[in-house]
């Protein structure tokens, strides 16, 4: 009997892995990420070439705010009035007009930027920063402090966030990297559950509508058949996932390596828009990043990822199998998708709104412990470090959860798979669940 489950698993696995579409999806998907990354880097690089510099006309009623041009902006002081400046923008000879009215240093208001197209946020932000510095200088001066003296006193400090008490010593943590890791892992699990859950459902519907099931149930228990299908398709997902990891890391390092050699480190980092992360000398920054990446416990991360990946898939996979068994065609399945989609969506939203924002809040704790949301939500917490008893509770509940959903789904599957032409609603499903025959 056990050998027969293996036959089912093998069939489900090979039938999918041997398909051309599997090969295509497996090879193309990982190409998408590096391609997009490469594309952005390419656009960013061509953006900083001198001719892409933006000319900005400044009309300063105070005659005091001189901004220094840099690689991105060139400021021109033509002594024009506001209307003349606006005309230049309309004609297209200037990208924008920065209008500075007579300012009250205590309450500087009324500064306006005019442009033909929407000004990028980053541009406005850097203009604001530059003006802020100037105004502060003036205000210091007004209160009798020499700005040069002040700047000679300024120092740059940076706090290294270190998490204590981890077995294997302390590690450097960084919220940006943790955020990215949690984000990616959560999304991956969410997508995986949906994509492969759907495959389970389609497969069950195929066997049901073609009556293959009637031949199979004489040799196998429906439950074994259901589990064989779920496990077989899950194995396809894991295979695909492993191939992706290999391909993505190989290709990404090629792409980054290529661009990395072509441009100085400093520029690369500034462009990535995370100045605060990379401030200080670039060498120092690189060391910092390396330390942070090393700070992530990859073995723990991979292990927990696999546990939640598999646990979440099994939990929801059983539901997808039950839905497939209850309906006659994929279009009928829609009505039952709601209760499956909602908790997954809650997990997905929760990941962004609560978990990644504050991994240790109460909401994050509950989201990462309740089995229906934990596969997605816990992955958002893991990279930030989770107390082991939270992890144990969450995994324990997840295992209990999928044992329960599988048992429940098995009851629906067993009856539904052989019922044709009946309009199945929630009432009928409830009856099947109670039926012990």
């Amino acid at each position, binding site marked *: 009997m056990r050998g027969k489950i293996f*036959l089912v698993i093998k069939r489900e696995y090979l039938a999918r892995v041997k398909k051309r579409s599997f090969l295509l999806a497996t090879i193309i998907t990982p190409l998408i990420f590096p391609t997009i990354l490469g594309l952005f880097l390419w656009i960013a690089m061509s953006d900083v070439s001198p001719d892409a510099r933006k000319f900005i006309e400044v009309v300063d009623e105070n005659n005091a705010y001189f901004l220094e041009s840099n690689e991105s902006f060139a400021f021109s002081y033509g002594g024009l009035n506001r209307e003349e400046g606006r005309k230049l923008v309309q004609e297209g000879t200037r990208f924008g007009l920065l209008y500075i009215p007579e300012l009250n240093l205590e309450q500087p208001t009324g500064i306006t930027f005019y442009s033909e197209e929407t000004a990028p946020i980053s541009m406005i932000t850097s203009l604001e920063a530059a003006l802020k510095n100037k105004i502060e200088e003036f205000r210091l001066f007004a209160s009798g402090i020499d700005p040069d003296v002040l700047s000679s006193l300024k120092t740059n400090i940076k706090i290294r966030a270190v998490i204590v008490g981890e077995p294997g010593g302390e590690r450097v943590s960084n919220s940006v990297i943790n955020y990215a890791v949690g984000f990616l892992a959560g999304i991956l699990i969410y997508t995986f559950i949906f994509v492969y859950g759907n495959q389970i459902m389609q497969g069950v519907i195929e*066997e049901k509508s*073609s009556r293959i*099931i*009637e*031949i199979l149930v004489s*040799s196998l228990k429906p439950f074994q058949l259901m589990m064989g299908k779920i496990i077989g398709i899950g194995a396809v997902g894991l295979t695909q996932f492993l191939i992706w990891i290999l391909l993505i890391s190989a290709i990404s390092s090629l792409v980054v390596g290529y661009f990395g050699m072509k441009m100085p480190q400093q520029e690369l980092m500034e462009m990535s828009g995370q100045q605060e992360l990379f401030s200080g000398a670039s060498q120092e920054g690189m060391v910092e990043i390396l330390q942070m990446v090393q700070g992530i416990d990859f073995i723990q991360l991979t292990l927990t990822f696999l546990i939640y990946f598999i646990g979440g898939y099994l939990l929801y996979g059983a539901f997808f199998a039950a839905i497939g068994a209850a309906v006659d065609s994929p279009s009928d399945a829609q009505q039952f998708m709601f209760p499956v989609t909602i908790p997954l969506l809650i997990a997905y939203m929760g990941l962004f709104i609560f978990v990644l924002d504050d991994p240790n809040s109460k909401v994050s704790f509950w989201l990462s412990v309740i089995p229906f949301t934990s596969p997605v939500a816990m992955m958002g917490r893991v990279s930030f470090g989770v107390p082991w008893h939270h992890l144990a509770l969450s995994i324990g509940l997840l295992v209990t959860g999928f044992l329960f959903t599988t048992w429940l789904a098995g009851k629906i599957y067993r009856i539904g798979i052989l019922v044709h032409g009946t309009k199945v609603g929630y009432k009928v499903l409830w009856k099947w669940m109670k039926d012990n*025959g």
Partner: protein
Amino acid sequence: MEILSVQSLNKSYGTHVALKDFNLSVAEGLVFGLLGPNGAGKTTFIRIVNQIIDQDSGEIFIKGQPLKMRHVRNIGYLPEERGLYKTMKVKEQLLYFARIKGLGKQDAIKKITSWLEKLNLTKWKDNKIQDLSKGMAQKVQFIATVIHQPDLLILDEPFSGFDPVNAEIIKNEILELKRQGTTIILSTHRMESVELLCDHIAMINQARKILDGPVKAIKNESKTNQFKVKMMVEDQTNMPPWGDVIAAEGQVEFTTSLNGQAPNALLNDLMQYGEILGFEEIVPSIEEIFIQKINESHEG
């Protein structure tokens, strides 16, 4: 020895009664015809025997033992609505079904090769089911049903979807399996296809069995002792009151009954009217018997 026996089987779907107090026994080594119109309860019965659905009440015995899952494994079942994995290759598919039914890999491959040969499918063995014609797919399904050499074969509408040539091939295979000792239950609503194939038939109508017996006995019972006669009659003005007379150019065709006489006595009587060209007993077809029985049961 009875390979299958069923006692007072009942099954309802909600308010619809699918089988009502149904009894049946199938002797080993026969081709047993289960006849009845669509919706009579044939498929319900077959599904219960295959443990696909449970009966509400009643008992089923296989070779005298109460039916268990392990017995079902020794039944070959061809469902009415055929199903195969469309994107799987013929050979792989047959291997899968054979192994699910408990055959070892080498044994399965050997049997598959010989069956594919027998049904002229060898050159299609690496094609996917979706690339095959309907008839070819049906043949693959037939192989999948018999590959594990079951003692009992249950075929639900086995000839639907086959052209006459392939239907003949399948019919011969069924007879060959019978020669090898397999008991075959053949369920169909197309009576003409089973008349020459079945040894024994049972008829179901509206959830009840209305007729059960060996084909020969049923036919004998249904005899009306009517004869169809064709003869030369010179003087057509002086004929006794025969039935359904068709007269033409000195030839007459008509029906007449024995009226308690032996057939030879009837022949002697007829000879005096002219030269006899044909003399044949009218035996109703299974289909006619069936319709007659249904009408009777409706009246009763």
